[in-house]
Protein backbone atom coordinates (compact mmCIF):
# COMPACT_ATOMS: atom_id res chain seq x y z
CA UNK A 1 0.00 0.00 0.00
CA UNK A 2 1.11 3.55 -0.67
CA UNK A 3 0.75 6.53 1.67
CA UNK A 4 -2.51 7.39 -0.04
CA UNK A 5 -3.91 4.02 0.84
CA UNK A 6 -3.72 2.82 -2.76
CA UNK A 7 -2.23 -0.45 -3.76
CA UNK A 8 0.58 0.46 -6.10
CA UNK A 9 0.42 -2.39 -8.52
CA UNK A 10 1.91 -0.61 -11.48
CA UNK A 11 0.82 -0.83 -15.06
CA UNK A 12 3.33 -3.50 -15.95
CA UNK A 13 1.88 -5.85 -13.33
CA UNK A 14 -1.83 -5.39 -13.50
CA UNK A 15 -2.62 -2.55 -15.81
CA UNK A 16 -4.46 -2.82 -19.04
CA UNK A 17 -3.24 -4.70 -22.01
CA UNK A 18 -3.07 -2.07 -24.66
CA UNK A 19 -4.69 -4.44 -27.08
CA UNK A 20 -6.68 -2.82 -29.82
CA UNK A 21 -7.66 -5.98 -31.62
CA UNK A 22 -10.64 -5.60 -33.91
CA UNK A 23 -12.27 -8.65 -32.38
CA UNK A 24 -11.43 -9.97 -28.95
CA UNK A 25 -12.77 -13.35 -27.77
CA UNK A 26 -11.82 -12.23 -24.24
CA UNK A 27 -14.30 -9.36 -24.40
CA UNK A 28 -16.97 -11.69 -25.81
CA UNK A 29 -16.26 -14.00 -22.86
CA UNK A 30 -16.59 -11.06 -20.45
CA UNK A 31 -20.04 -10.26 -21.80
CA UNK A 32 -21.14 -13.90 -21.73
CA UNK A 33 -19.96 -13.98 -18.12
CA UNK A 34 -22.12 -10.92 -17.44
CA UNK A 35 -25.26 -12.73 -18.63
CA UNK A 36 -24.31 -16.01 -16.94
CA UNK A 37 -23.86 -14.16 -13.63
CA UNK A 38 -27.34 -12.74 -14.11
CA UNK A 39 -28.89 -16.15 -14.81
CA UNK A 40 -26.95 -17.83 -12.02
CA UNK A 41 -28.11 -15.29 -9.49
CA UNK A 42 -31.82 -15.69 -10.22
CA UNK A 43 -33.49 -19.11 -9.98
CA UNK A 44 -36.85 -17.68 -11.22
CA UNK A 45 -35.13 -16.77 -14.49
CA UNK A 46 -33.88 -20.32 -14.95
CA UNK A 47 -37.27 -21.74 -13.99
CA UNK A 48 -39.01 -19.41 -16.43
CA UNK A 49 -36.68 -20.65 -19.19
CA UNK A 50 -37.64 -24.26 -18.58
CA UNK A 51 -41.30 -23.74 -17.69
CA UNK A 52 -42.95 -22.83 -21.00
CA UNK A 53 -41.24 -25.33 -23.29
CA UNK A 54 -42.10 -28.08 -20.82
CA UNK A 55 -45.76 -27.02 -20.55
CA UNK A 56 -45.99 -26.78 -24.34
CA UNK A 57 -44.49 -30.22 -24.72
CA UNK A 58 -46.99 -31.71 -22.25
CA UNK A 59 -50.02 -30.09 -23.94
CA UNK A 60 -48.92 -31.15 -27.42
CA UNK A 61 -47.93 -34.59 -26.16
CA UNK A 62 -51.46 -35.31 -24.97
CA UNK A 63 -52.89 -33.71 -28.12
CA UNK A 64 -50.69 -36.01 -30.20
CA UNK A 65 -51.81 -39.06 -28.20
CA UNK A 66 -55.43 -38.16 -28.90
CA UNK A 67 -54.85 -37.37 -32.56
CA UNK A 68 -52.77 -40.48 -33.19
CA UNK A 69 -55.97 -42.52 -32.89
CA UNK A 70 -58.21 -39.95 -34.61
CA UNK A 71 -56.03 -38.60 -37.39
CA UNK A 72 -54.39 -40.76 -40.01
CA UNK A 73 -51.86 -37.98 -40.71
CA UNK A 74 -50.60 -37.86 -37.12
CA UNK A 75 -51.03 -41.60 -36.89
CA UNK A 76 -48.38 -42.07 -39.60
CA UNK A 77 -45.82 -40.26 -37.48
CA UNK A 78 -46.73 -39.80 -33.82
CA UNK A 79 -43.99 -37.27 -33.13
CA UNK A 80 -44.82 -34.87 -35.96
CA UNK A 81 -46.57 -32.39 -33.67
CA UNK A 82 -44.25 -32.87 -30.70
CA UNK A 83 -41.17 -32.50 -32.91
CA UNK A 84 -42.68 -29.39 -34.46
CA UNK A 85 -43.48 -27.79 -31.13
CA UNK A 86 -40.01 -28.51 -29.75
CA UNK A 87 -38.27 -27.16 -32.85
CA UNK A 88 -40.52 -24.08 -32.96
CA UNK A 89 -39.53 -23.41 -29.39
CA UNK A 90 -35.87 -23.57 -30.42
CA UNK A 91 -36.62 -20.74 -32.85
CA UNK A 92 -38.70 -18.75 -30.37
CA UNK A 93 -36.29 -19.24 -27.43
CA UNK A 94 -33.31 -18.53 -29.67
CA UNK A 95 -34.72 -15.14 -30.62
CA UNK A 96 -35.72 -14.41 -27.02
CA UNK A 97 -32.22 -15.39 -25.92
CA UNK A 98 -30.80 -12.57 -28.03
CA UNK A 99 -33.53 -10.04 -27.26
CA UNK A 100 -33.74 -10.59 -23.49
CA UNK A 101 -29.98 -10.32 -23.02
CA UNK A 102 -30.15 -7.15 -25.09
CA UNK A 103 -33.03 -5.82 -23.00
CA UNK A 104 -31.09 -6.52 -19.80
CA UNK A 105 -28.66 -3.78 -20.83
CA UNK A 106 -31.47 -1.32 -21.49
CA UNK A 107 -33.26 -2.16 -18.24
CA UNK A 108 -30.06 -1.69 -16.24
CA UNK A 109 -29.01 1.47 -18.17
CA UNK A 110 -25.60 -0.09 -18.65
CA UNK A 111 -24.98 0.74 -22.32
CA UNK A 112 -23.09 3.92 -21.44
CA UNK A 113 -20.50 2.00 -19.43
CA UNK A 114 -20.25 -0.80 -21.97
CA UNK A 115 -19.53 1.41 -24.93
CA UNK A 116 -16.94 3.62 -23.32
CA UNK A 117 -15.02 0.40 -22.70
CA UNK A 118 -13.07 -1.24 -25.54
CA UNK A 119 -16.08 -3.49 -26.26
CA UNK A 120 -17.09 -3.36 -29.91
CA UNK A 121 -20.68 -3.72 -31.14
CA UNK A 122 -19.83 -6.90 -33.04
CA UNK A 123 -18.34 -8.48 -29.91
CA UNK A 124 -21.47 -7.61 -27.99
CA UNK A 125 -23.60 -9.11 -30.76
CA UNK A 126 -21.58 -12.34 -30.70
CA UNK A 127 -21.96 -12.57 -26.92
CA UNK A 128 -25.73 -12.25 -27.37
CA UNK A 129 -25.68 -15.17 -29.82
CA UNK A 130 -23.63 -17.32 -27.45
CA UNK A 131 -26.10 -16.56 -24.66
CA UNK A 132 -28.97 -17.40 -26.95
CA UNK A 133 -27.46 -20.85 -27.53
CA UNK A 134 -26.95 -21.38 -23.78
CA UNK A 135 -30.50 -20.29 -22.97
CA UNK A 136 -31.97 -22.54 -25.67
CA UNK A 137 -30.09 -25.53 -24.30
CA UNK A 138 -31.28 -24.78 -20.74
CA UNK A 139 -34.85 -24.37 -21.98
CA UNK A 140 -35.15 -27.24 -24.43
CA UNK A 141 -33.15 -30.13 -23.04
CA UNK A 142 -35.42 -30.75 -20.01
CA UNK A 143 -38.56 -30.66 -22.21
CA UNK A 144 -37.04 -32.97 -24.83
CA UNK A 145 -35.83 -35.42 -22.20
CA UNK A 146 -39.13 -35.38 -20.32
CA UNK A 147 -41.01 -36.27 -23.53
CA UNK A 148 -39.24 -39.65 -23.61
CA UNK A 149 -40.73 -41.16 -20.42
CA UNK A 150 -44.03 -39.25 -20.70
CA UNK A 151 -44.96 -39.99 -24.31
CA UNK A 152 -42.39 -42.48 -25.49
CA UNK A 153 -41.20 -39.93 -28.03
CA UNK A 154 -37.59 -38.87 -28.42
CA UNK A 155 -36.83 -35.95 -30.68
CA UNK A 156 -33.29 -37.33 -30.75
CA UNK A 157 -34.50 -40.17 -33.00
CA UNK A 158 -34.33 -37.59 -35.79
CA UNK A 159 -30.61 -38.27 -35.60
CA UNK A 160 -28.05 -36.06 -37.29
CA UNK A 161 -30.70 -34.08 -39.21
CA UNK A 162 -31.85 -32.78 -35.82
CA UNK A 163 -28.52 -30.95 -35.45
CA UNK A 164 -29.01 -29.39 -38.89
CA UNK A 165 -32.58 -28.35 -38.05
CA UNK A 166 -31.60 -26.86 -34.69
CA UNK A 167 -28.59 -25.04 -36.16
CA UNK A 168 -30.69 -23.49 -38.94
CA UNK A 169 -33.47 -22.47 -36.57
CA UNK A 170 -30.96 -20.92 -34.18
CA UNK A 171 -29.35 -18.88 -36.95
CA UNK A 172 -32.76 -17.78 -38.21
CA UNK A 173 -33.72 -16.76 -34.66
CA UNK A 174 -30.49 -14.79 -34.32
CA UNK A 175 -31.25 -12.85 -37.49
CA UNK A 176 -34.66 -11.90 -36.06
CA UNK A 177 -33.03 -11.14 -32.69
CA UNK A 178 -30.49 -8.83 -34.32
CA UNK A 179 -33.26 -7.00 -36.15
CA UNK A 180 -35.23 -6.58 -32.90
CA UNK A 181 -32.06 -5.36 -31.18
CA UNK A 182 -31.70 -2.77 -33.93
CA UNK A 183 -35.31 -1.66 -33.42
CA UNK A 184 -34.66 -1.34 -29.67
CA UNK A 185 -31.57 0.78 -30.34
CA UNK A 186 -33.58 3.03 -32.63
CA UNK A 187 -36.76 3.25 -30.54
CA UNK A 188 -35.66 2.43 -27.00
CA UNK A 189 -37.87 0.46 -24.64
CA UNK A 190 -40.94 1.64 -26.58
CA UNK A 191 -40.17 -1.25 -28.92
CA UNK A 192 -39.87 -3.80 -26.09
CA UNK A 193 -43.08 -5.59 -27.10
CA UNK A 194 -41.41 -6.63 -30.35
CA UNK A 195 -39.07 -8.87 -28.41
CA UNK A 196 -41.99 -10.97 -27.20
CA UNK A 197 -44.26 -10.87 -30.24
CA UNK A 198 -42.21 -10.53 -33.42
CA UNK A 199 -41.67 -14.22 -34.15
CA UNK A 200 -45.37 -15.03 -34.02
CA UNK A 201 -45.97 -13.21 -37.28
CA UNK A 202 -43.66 -15.81 -38.84
CA UNK A 203 -45.45 -18.76 -37.27
CA UNK A 204 -48.34 -19.15 -39.79
CA UNK A 205 -46.02 -18.94 -42.79
CA UNK A 206 -43.34 -21.15 -41.28
CA UNK A 207 -45.62 -24.17 -41.71
CA UNK A 208 -44.77 -25.44 -38.26
CA UNK A 209 -47.71 -27.81 -37.79
CA UNK A 210 -48.86 -28.27 -41.40
CA UNK A 211 -47.20 -28.53 -44.83
CA UNK A 212 -46.57 -25.41 -46.91
CA UNK A 213 -48.91 -26.89 -49.56
CA UNK A 214 -51.97 -26.02 -47.44
CA UNK A 215 -51.18 -22.29 -47.71
CA UNK A 216 -52.65 -20.20 -50.54
CA UNK A 217 -50.32 -19.79 -53.51
CA UNK A 218 -49.15 -16.28 -52.70
CA UNK A 219 -48.41 -17.23 -49.09
CA UNK A 220 -46.41 -20.24 -50.27
CA UNK A 221 -44.06 -17.79 -51.96
CA UNK A 222 -43.62 -15.99 -48.64
CA UNK A 223 -43.18 -19.30 -46.80
CA UNK A 224 -40.45 -20.50 -49.13
CA UNK A 225 -38.60 -17.23 -48.62
CA UNK A 226 -38.22 -18.15 -44.95
CA UNK A 227 -35.57 -20.58 -43.67
CA UNK A 228 -37.96 -21.81 -40.96
CA UNK A 229 -40.48 -23.28 -43.42
CA UNK A 230 -37.69 -25.26 -45.14
CA UNK A 231 -36.62 -26.65 -41.76
CA UNK A 232 -40.15 -27.82 -40.88
CA UNK A 233 -40.69 -29.27 -44.36
CA UNK A 234 -37.39 -31.08 -43.93
CA UNK A 235 -38.43 -32.39 -40.53
CA UNK A 236 -41.65 -33.84 -41.95
CA UNK A 237 -39.74 -35.52 -44.79
CA UNK A 238 -37.53 -37.24 -42.23
CA UNK A 239 -40.52 -38.34 -40.16
CA UNK A 240 -42.89 -39.40 -42.94
CA UNK A 241 -40.59 -40.42 -45.76
CA UNK A 242 -37.47 -41.26 -43.74
CA UNK A 243 -35.31 -39.17 -46.06
CA UNK A 244 -33.14 -36.18 -45.32
CA UNK A 245 -33.87 -33.47 -47.85
CA UNK A 246 -30.58 -31.83 -48.82
CA UNK A 247 -32.39 -29.30 -50.98
CA UNK A 248 -34.53 -28.07 -48.06
CA UNK A 249 -31.39 -27.75 -45.93
CA UNK A 250 -29.56 -25.93 -48.72
CA UNK A 251 -32.43 -23.46 -49.04
CA UNK A 252 -32.61 -22.94 -45.28
CA UNK A 253 -28.86 -22.41 -45.00
CA UNK A 254 -28.67 -20.08 -47.99
CA UNK A 255 -31.58 -17.98 -46.74
CA UNK A 256 -30.04 -17.89 -43.26
CA UNK A 257 -26.79 -16.52 -44.64
CA UNK A 258 -28.73 -13.71 -46.32
CA UNK A 259 -30.96 -12.91 -43.32
CA UNK A 260 -28.11 -13.11 -40.82
CA UNK A 261 -26.06 -10.69 -42.92
CA UNK A 262 -29.06 -8.36 -43.16
CA UNK A 263 -29.76 -8.67 -39.42
CA UNK A 264 -26.15 -7.92 -38.48
CA UNK A 265 -25.95 -5.01 -40.92
CA UNK A 266 -29.21 -3.56 -39.56
CA UNK A 267 -27.90 -3.93 -36.00
CA UNK A 268 -24.60 -2.18 -36.76
CA UNK A 269 -26.38 0.57 -38.71
CA UNK A 270 -28.79 1.11 -35.81
CA UNK A 271 -25.85 1.31 -33.41
CA UNK A 272 -24.29 3.99 -35.61
CA UNK A 273 -27.61 5.86 -35.70
CA UNK A 274 -27.86 5.60 -31.91
CA UNK A 275 -24.44 7.26 -31.63
CA UNK A 276 -25.65 10.09 -33.84
CA UNK A 277 -28.93 10.53 -31.96
CA UNK A 278 -27.45 10.07 -28.50
CA UNK A 279 -29.82 7.26 -27.63
CA UNK A 280 -27.12 5.01 -26.14
CA UNK A 281 -27.18 7.10 -22.96
CA UNK A 282 -30.91 7.71 -23.00
CA UNK A 283 -32.21 4.16 -22.96
CA UNK A 284 -33.42 2.88 -19.62
CA UNK A 285 -36.27 1.81 -17.43
Amino acid at each position, binding site marked *: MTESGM*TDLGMTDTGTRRAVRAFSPARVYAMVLRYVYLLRGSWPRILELIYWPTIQMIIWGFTSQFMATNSSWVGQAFGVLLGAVLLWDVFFRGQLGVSISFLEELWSRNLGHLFVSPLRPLEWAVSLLVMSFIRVMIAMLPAALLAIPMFGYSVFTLGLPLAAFVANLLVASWAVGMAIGAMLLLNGLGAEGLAWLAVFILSPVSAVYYPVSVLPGWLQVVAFALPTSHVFEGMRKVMFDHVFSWSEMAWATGLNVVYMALGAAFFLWAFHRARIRGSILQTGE
Partner: protein
Amino acid sequence: MPTVESLQGHEGSPEWARSERVLSAVCSCRLAKHRASCHIHSVSDPVILVENLVKRFGASTAVDGVSFVVPRGRTTALLGGNGAGKTTTISMLLGLLLPTSGSIRVLGEDMLRHRHRVLSRMNFSSPYVDLPHRLTVRENLMIYARLYGVDRPTRRVAAIMGDLQIGEFANRPSGRLSAGQKTRVALAKALLNEPEVLLLDEPTASLDPDTADWVRSYLEAYQRRTGASILLASHNMAEVERLCSDVVMMRQGRIVDQGAPAELVERYGRADLEGVFLAIARRSEAVPA
Protein backbone atom coordinates in the same frame (compact mmCIF):
# COMPACT_ATOMS: atom_id res chain seq x y z
CA MET B 1 1.24 13.93 -28.85
CA PRO B 2 4.24 16.27 -28.86
CA THR B 3 4.30 19.24 -26.50
CA VAL B 4 3.55 22.68 -27.81
CA GLU B 5 7.02 23.75 -26.75
CA SER B 6 8.61 20.79 -28.42
CA LEU B 7 6.88 21.74 -31.63
CA GLN B 8 8.73 25.01 -31.71
CA GLY B 9 11.13 24.79 -34.56
CA HIS B 10 8.69 22.50 -36.34
CA GLU B 11 6.29 25.28 -37.26
CA GLY B 12 4.18 24.31 -40.19
CA SER B 13 3.92 20.63 -39.37
CA PRO B 14 0.35 19.23 -39.13
CA GLU B 15 0.70 18.58 -35.36
CA TRP B 16 2.00 22.09 -34.76
CA ALA B 17 -0.79 23.57 -36.85
CA ARG B 18 -3.45 21.58 -34.99
CA SER B 19 -2.25 22.50 -31.50
CA GLU B 20 -1.65 26.09 -32.50
CA ARG B 21 -5.11 26.36 -34.05
CA VAL B 22 -6.86 25.09 -30.92
CA LEU B 23 -4.80 27.15 -28.52
CA SER B 24 -5.44 30.24 -30.61
CA ALA B 25 -9.14 29.47 -30.66
CA VAL B 26 -9.35 29.28 -26.89
CA CYS B 27 -6.99 32.13 -26.05
CA SER B 28 -6.83 35.64 -27.35
CA CYS B 29 -3.09 36.02 -26.74
CA ARG B 30 -1.41 37.11 -29.91
CA LEU B 31 1.95 38.33 -28.76
CA ALA B 32 4.71 35.90 -27.88
CA LYS B 33 5.57 37.80 -24.71
CA HIS B 34 1.99 37.40 -23.46
CA ARG B 35 1.96 33.76 -24.37
CA ALA B 36 4.91 33.16 -22.12
CA SER B 37 2.77 33.98 -19.06
CA CYS B 38 -0.55 32.71 -20.39
CA HIS B 39 -1.75 29.53 -18.68
CA ILE B 40 -3.46 28.28 -21.83
CA HIS B 41 -0.38 28.68 -23.98
CA SER B 42 1.71 27.15 -21.24
CA VAL B 43 -0.21 23.94 -21.89
CA SER B 44 2.26 21.31 -22.75
CA ASP B 45 1.38 17.96 -24.15
CA PRO B 46 -2.42 18.26 -24.41
CA VAL B 47 -4.03 14.90 -23.72
CA ILE B 48 -7.43 15.98 -25.02
CA LEU B 49 -7.59 18.34 -27.96
CA VAL B 50 -11.07 19.45 -29.01
CA GLU B 51 -11.51 21.62 -32.08
CA ASN B 52 -14.64 23.37 -33.32
CA LEU B 53 -16.92 20.70 -31.91
CA VAL B 54 -20.54 21.03 -32.98
CA LYS B 55 -23.51 18.82 -32.12
CA ARG B 56 -26.96 19.47 -33.50
CA PHE B 57 -30.12 17.52 -32.76
CA GLY B 58 -32.44 18.58 -35.54
CA ALA B 59 -32.86 22.33 -35.30
CA SER B 60 -31.40 22.51 -31.79
CA THR B 61 -27.67 23.09 -31.33
CA ALA B 62 -26.43 21.46 -28.12
CA VAL B 63 -22.74 22.20 -28.62
CA ASP B 64 -21.71 25.07 -30.81
CA GLY B 65 -18.10 25.30 -31.97
CA VAL B 66 -16.33 24.27 -28.79
CA SER B 67 -12.52 24.14 -28.68
CA PHE B 68 -10.38 23.38 -25.65
CA VAL B 69 -7.41 21.40 -24.45
CA VAL B 70 -6.85 19.24 -21.38
CA PRO B 71 -3.20 19.21 -20.36
CA ARG B 72 -1.41 16.04 -19.31
CA GLY B 73 -1.40 15.29 -15.61
CA ARG B 74 -3.84 18.03 -14.65
CA THR B 75 -7.50 18.26 -13.77
CA THR B 76 -9.71 20.43 -15.94
CA ALA B 77 -13.26 21.33 -15.02
CA LEU B 78 -16.07 21.62 -17.50
CA LEU B 79 -18.58 23.95 -15.89
CA GLY B 80 -21.94 25.31 -16.84
CA GLY B 81 -25.56 25.34 -15.83
CA ASN B 82 -28.04 22.65 -16.76
CA GLY B 83 -28.29 22.38 -20.53
CA ALA B 84 -24.97 24.13 -21.11
CA GLY B 85 -23.69 21.20 -23.16
CA LYS B 86 -21.29 19.56 -20.68
CA THR B 87 -22.75 16.06 -20.81
CA THR B 88 -23.09 16.24 -24.59
CA THR B 89 -19.43 17.27 -24.85
CA ILE B 90 -18.30 14.46 -22.53
CA SER B 91 -20.41 11.96 -24.46
CA MET B 92 -18.67 13.01 -27.67
CA LEU B 93 -15.25 12.74 -26.02
CA LEU B 94 -16.09 9.19 -25.04
CA GLY B 95 -17.44 8.27 -28.46
CA LEU B 96 -20.98 7.59 -27.22
CA LEU B 97 -22.21 10.42 -29.38
CA LEU B 98 -20.99 11.41 -32.84
CA PRO B 99 -20.45 15.13 -33.40
CA THR B 100 -22.06 16.94 -36.28
CA SER B 101 -18.67 18.46 -37.06
CA GLY B 102 -15.33 19.17 -35.46
CA SER B 103 -12.51 16.99 -34.25
CA ILE B 104 -11.49 15.29 -31.01
CA ARG B 105 -8.04 13.89 -30.32
CA VAL B 106 -7.38 11.93 -27.17
CA LEU B 107 -3.84 10.73 -26.42
CA GLY B 108 -2.99 11.69 -29.97
CA GLU B 109 -5.68 9.55 -31.60
CA ASP B 110 -8.58 10.81 -33.67
CA MET B 111 -11.60 9.72 -31.61
CA LEU B 112 -13.93 9.76 -34.57
CA ARG B 113 -11.85 7.27 -36.50
CA HIS B 114 -9.71 5.34 -34.06
CA ARG B 115 -11.37 5.54 -30.66
CA HIS B 116 -10.75 1.85 -30.02
CA ARG B 117 -7.03 2.56 -29.97
CA VAL B 118 -7.37 4.60 -26.78
CA LEU B 119 -10.53 3.40 -25.02
CA SER B 120 -8.53 0.94 -22.90
CA ARG B 121 -6.46 3.88 -21.64
CA MET B 122 -9.49 5.95 -20.65
CA ASN B 123 -12.37 5.48 -18.27
CA PHE B 124 -15.49 7.22 -17.12
CA SER B 125 -17.77 7.56 -14.13
CA SER B 126 -21.17 9.15 -13.83
CA PRO B 127 -23.95 8.83 -11.27
CA TYR B 128 -26.37 8.85 -14.20
CA VAL B 129 -25.08 5.67 -15.82
CA ASP B 130 -25.68 2.57 -13.73
CA LEU B 131 -23.92 -0.72 -13.34
CA PRO B 132 -26.25 -3.74 -13.62
CA HIS B 133 -28.31 -3.75 -10.43
CA ARG B 134 -28.72 -7.49 -10.03
CA LEU B 135 -25.05 -8.32 -10.32
CA THR B 136 -22.92 -8.13 -7.22
CA VAL B 137 -20.24 -5.49 -6.88
CA ARG B 138 -17.52 -8.10 -7.37
CA GLU B 139 -19.21 -9.55 -10.47
CA ASN B 140 -19.57 -6.11 -12.03
CA LEU B 141 -15.94 -5.26 -11.40
CA MET B 142 -14.76 -8.62 -12.75
CA ILE B 143 -16.68 -8.08 -15.98
CA TYR B 144 -15.31 -4.59 -16.52
CA ALA B 145 -11.78 -5.72 -15.63
CA ARG B 146 -12.06 -8.27 -18.44
CA LEU B 147 -13.62 -5.80 -20.87
CA TYR B 148 -10.70 -3.44 -20.30
CA GLY B 149 -8.21 -6.27 -20.75
CA VAL B 150 -6.78 -5.87 -17.26
CA ASP B 151 -4.06 -8.40 -16.48
CA ARG B 152 -4.85 -10.78 -13.61
CA PRO B 153 -8.35 -9.37 -13.14
CA THR B 154 -9.11 -11.22 -9.88
CA ARG B 155 -6.06 -9.73 -8.20
CA ARG B 156 -6.73 -6.28 -9.60
CA VAL B 157 -10.38 -6.31 -8.50
CA ALA B 158 -9.34 -7.40 -4.99
CA ALA B 159 -6.77 -4.59 -4.86
CA ILE B 160 -9.11 -1.84 -6.00
CA MET B 161 -11.83 -3.08 -3.63
CA GLY B 162 -9.30 -2.81 -0.81
CA ASP B 163 -8.22 0.67 -1.88
CA LEU B 164 -11.75 1.98 -2.07
CA GLN B 165 -12.94 0.09 1.03
CA ILE B 166 -15.73 -1.74 -0.73
CA GLY B 167 -14.76 -5.26 0.32
CA GLU B 168 -17.46 -5.41 2.98
CA PHE B 169 -20.23 -5.16 0.40
CA ALA B 170 -18.45 -6.88 -2.47
CA ASN B 171 -21.03 -9.65 -2.61
CA ARG B 172 -24.06 -7.38 -2.40
CA PRO B 173 -26.10 -6.65 -5.56
CA SER B 174 -25.13 -3.23 -6.93
CA GLY B 175 -28.78 -2.14 -6.86
CA ARG B 176 -28.88 -2.45 -3.07
CA LEU B 177 -26.09 -0.01 -2.32
CA SER B 178 -26.38 3.42 -0.74
CA ALA B 179 -25.51 6.48 -2.82
CA GLY B 180 -22.08 6.69 -1.22
CA GLN B 181 -21.36 3.01 -1.79
CA LYS B 182 -22.51 3.28 -5.41
CA THR B 183 -20.16 6.20 -5.99
CA ARG B 184 -17.22 4.26 -4.60
CA VAL B 185 -18.08 1.25 -6.78
CA ALA B 186 -18.42 3.50 -9.84
CA LEU B 187 -15.04 5.00 -9.03
CA ALA B 188 -13.56 1.52 -8.65
CA LYS B 189 -14.90 0.60 -12.08
CA ALA B 190 -13.46 3.84 -13.51
CA LEU B 191 -10.00 3.12 -12.07
CA LEU B 192 -9.82 -0.61 -12.82
CA ASN B 193 -7.63 -0.10 -15.85
CA GLU B 194 -5.57 2.68 -14.23
CA PRO B 195 -6.66 5.13 -16.92
CA GLU B 196 -4.40 7.84 -18.23
CA VAL B 197 -7.49 9.89 -19.03
CA LEU B 198 -10.40 9.96 -16.62
CA LEU B 199 -13.72 11.62 -17.39
CA LEU B 200 -15.86 12.24 -14.34
CA ASP B 201 -19.41 13.52 -14.47
CA GLU B 202 -20.35 14.92 -11.05
CA PRO B 203 -18.26 12.42 -9.09
CA THR B 204 -19.53 13.59 -5.70
CA ALA B 205 -23.18 14.29 -6.52
CA SER B 206 -25.53 13.26 -3.70
CA LEU B 207 -22.70 12.36 -1.33
CA ASP B 208 -22.45 13.54 2.26
CA PRO B 209 -19.56 15.99 2.89
CA ASP B 210 -17.39 13.37 4.55
CA THR B 211 -17.70 10.84 1.72
CA ALA B 212 -17.32 13.57 -0.89
CA ASP B 213 -14.10 14.75 0.77
CA TRP B 214 -12.84 11.18 0.85
CA VAL B 215 -13.51 10.79 -2.89
CA ARG B 216 -11.69 14.05 -3.69
CA SER B 217 -8.70 12.98 -1.62
CA TYR B 218 -8.64 9.66 -3.39
CA LEU B 219 -8.71 11.31 -6.82
CA GLU B 220 -5.89 13.67 -5.82
CA ALA B 221 -3.80 10.75 -4.60
CA TYR B 222 -4.55 8.76 -7.75
CA GLN B 223 -3.46 11.63 -9.96
CA ARG B 224 -0.27 12.19 -7.95
CA ARG B 225 0.60 8.52 -8.25
CA THR B 226 -0.22 7.94 -11.92
CA GLY B 227 -0.02 11.38 -13.54
CA ALA B 228 -3.46 10.86 -15.02
CA SER B 229 -5.36 13.68 -16.72
CA ILE B 230 -8.88 14.31 -15.46
CA LEU B 231 -11.79 16.10 -17.08
CA LEU B 232 -14.43 16.83 -14.48
CA ALA B 233 -17.98 18.08 -14.83
CA SER B 234 -19.31 19.36 -11.54
CA HIS B 235 -21.73 21.81 -10.00
CA ASN B 236 -19.72 21.97 -6.81
CA MET B 237 -17.49 25.04 -7.11
CA ALA B 238 -15.55 24.34 -3.92
CA GLU B 239 -14.68 20.93 -5.39
CA VAL B 240 -13.54 22.53 -8.63
CA GLU B 241 -11.37 25.07 -6.82
CA ARG B 242 -9.77 22.28 -4.84
CA LEU B 243 -9.18 19.76 -7.62
CA CYS B 244 -8.83 21.69 -10.84
CA SER B 245 -6.01 23.69 -12.32
CA ASP B 246 -8.06 24.73 -15.35
CA VAL B 247 -11.70 25.62 -15.84
CA VAL B 248 -13.74 25.69 -19.05
CA MET B 249 -16.99 27.62 -18.65
CA MET B 250 -19.88 26.66 -20.94
CA ARG B 251 -23.19 28.36 -21.56
CA GLN B 252 -25.79 27.46 -24.16
CA GLY B 253 -23.42 25.11 -25.94
CA ARG B 254 -20.52 27.54 -26.17
CA ILE B 255 -17.39 28.17 -24.20
CA VAL B 256 -17.78 31.60 -22.68
CA ASP B 257 -14.53 31.73 -20.74
CA GLN B 258 -11.68 29.63 -19.46
CA GLY B 259 -8.65 29.87 -17.27
CA ALA B 260 -7.23 28.88 -13.93
CA PRO B 261 -9.77 29.18 -11.08
CA ALA B 262 -7.84 32.02 -9.39
CA GLU B 263 -7.44 33.76 -12.74
CA LEU B 264 -11.20 33.67 -13.36
CA VAL B 265 -12.01 34.84 -9.86
CA GLU B 266 -9.68 37.80 -10.33
CA ARG B 267 -10.94 38.56 -13.84
CA TYR B 268 -14.57 38.69 -12.76
CA GLY B 269 -13.81 40.45 -9.49
CA ARG B 270 -15.65 37.85 -7.42
CA ALA B 271 -14.88 36.30 -4.09
CA ASP B 272 -14.79 32.75 -5.38
CA LEU B 273 -15.54 30.52 -8.35
CA GLU B 274 -19.19 30.27 -7.40
CA GLY B 275 -19.45 34.02 -7.94
CA VAL B 276 -17.87 33.63 -11.37
CA PHE B 277 -20.24 30.80 -12.20
CA LEU B 278 -23.26 32.90 -11.22
CA ALA B 279 -21.98 35.87 -13.17
CA ILE B 280 -21.62 33.77 -16.29
CA ALA B 281 -24.91 31.94 -15.80
CA ARG B 282 -26.71 35.30 -15.40
CA ARG B 283 -25.44 36.54 -18.68
CA SER B 284 -26.12 40.27 -18.18
CA GLU B 285 -23.61 40.25 -15.33
CA ALA B 286 -21.07 38.22 -17.24
CA VAL B 287 -18.69 41.05 -17.87
CA PRO B 288 -15.22 40.63 -16.49
CA ALA B 289 -14.37 43.39 -13.99
